[in-house]
């Protein structure tokens, strides 16, 4: 386990930079993670997805897959890719301070 400082607070992250303890997360940390992933400003649409991911994870214990995200977050897959280039589910999870989605075994 590695400790890094995000928004002035030390937090534990996995080797890919996902927070190990979602309860340590703050919005400011999310903004900092987004910036280091190349997203300068998180818009309302970004937050809609991030909040949805985080809520689903905290309620059910697992983060939604991209497909489930496209069906239930209110943001279609095409737009998800515009908001979070490369991997929307992974990136939104990272910014939202929850573990990497496990993409079912």
């Amino acid at each position, binding site marked *: 386990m590695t400790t890094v400082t995000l928004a002035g607070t030390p937090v534990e992250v996995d080797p890919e930079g996902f927070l190990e303890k979602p309860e340590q997360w703050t919005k400011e940390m999310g903004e900092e993670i987004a910036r280091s992933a190349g997203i300068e400003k998180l818009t309302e649409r970004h937050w809609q997805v991030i909040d949805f991911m985080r809520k689903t994870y905290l309620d059910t214990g697992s983060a*939604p897959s991209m497909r489930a995200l496209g069906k239930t977050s209110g943001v279609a897959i*095409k737009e998800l890719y515009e908001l979070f280039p490369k991997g929307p589910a992974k990136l939104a999870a990272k910014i939202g301070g929850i573990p990497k989605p496990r993409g079912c075994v």
Partner: protein
Amino acid sequence: MRIVSAGRKPTSRLEFGQIGHDEPIANRILILGAGTGGTLIANKLRRRYGAETEITIVDRDDRHVYQPDLLFVPFGLVAPNSICRPRSKQLRRGIEFRIGEVERIETEKNTVHLAGGDALPYDVLIVASGAELLPEETEGLTGPGWGENAFTYYSVEGAAALRKAMESFEGGRLVVNIVDMPIKCPIAPLEFCFLSDWWLKKSGLRGKTEIVLATPLDGAFTQPVAAKMLGELLERKNVLVETEYSTGRVDGEARKLHSWDEREIPYDLLVSIPLHGGSPFVASSDGLGDALGFVAVDQNTLQTKAAANVFAIGDATDVPTSKAGAVAHFQAETLVENIDRFLAGKELEKSFDGHANCFIETGFSKALLLDFSYDVEPLPGKFPFPLIGPMTLLRESRIDHLGKLAFRQLYWHLLLPGRRIPTISAQLKMAGKDASLLRPEGDNG
């Protein structure tokens, strides 16, 4: 064989207010789906309870497919009709088999509604309706070229059609594409690549064929140790792997896959593993399923979150382990015990640990074996006996291949009838596994 347990007395219909008072027993167990999970649980329950318990199982047709053999059909290694048997013939005497299309479940009235208007009341319901293929959900997949140069072998008809196309294949780019997870038997697309390599070499076409695996995962498999070993095996067999490939649409006329992030993959022959979803009735039954139509259950007890007297087994569930027959087989032990406990008003047993185990056919009469659970990723070692094996874990061997072939017989004669398979336990065992490859914290997420 067990008959009704001593001390149980036949009672009238179960009233839920009574649970925990006089140990009433259910007399109507209804099972939706007569595939691997539904059939084996029906047979196990029939052996456990006497005639005062009615067991009814519903399916939309009378064809049971041994799905692991679908992989072999395109290579001409098994004939499509040899992997199908009547569902009704796999059920013990005393189980009522009904053909019908389920429309929805009304959990508050303990009733299942069938298309055509019939209503089936139940005391305990088991949803075993599996996963369905949804090729039409991917733009263009079932458009031009579908059935000509784009196929899926995840159905009997699809596998048979692909067989014909393979016979006239002259080389080019063979692309195996997993559209998105979850899918049945997540390892099968890798097996298809391995067998293609073998088959193309045998046919003298390997030199002029490129095999590409386009997967949404970030490696060959989800779990690190197996992903590394399987990744190396794909490399050795010269299979190109395009990772984190999230298929957006298929252009059948230009014969190209397009990902959401605008990566193009051209193909001459496309082998698609389409999107999977739960049965449509799951989505039409309030609160039963998740966004993809899989039944939301407690991952250790298999009781649904929607209703205490509704359980689920196998591919139909949303549990985070492989969708595979072996999983349904291990789940069945937990489920039989928990139905018994539920009826007796006792606390359910949290015994299902996500145990999955599968043979991976690697071509040239070899295979390897994976054994894993929610908490333990696949590791190398020996199975089922430490040091002795005879099977090896996560390493190719001839005996694993023979194991895979022998499993056909075990499936029809031991697994479906609900008998125990000797030496294989429902819970994962660490003995015989090399745990030194795990990350120090034991974190495999």
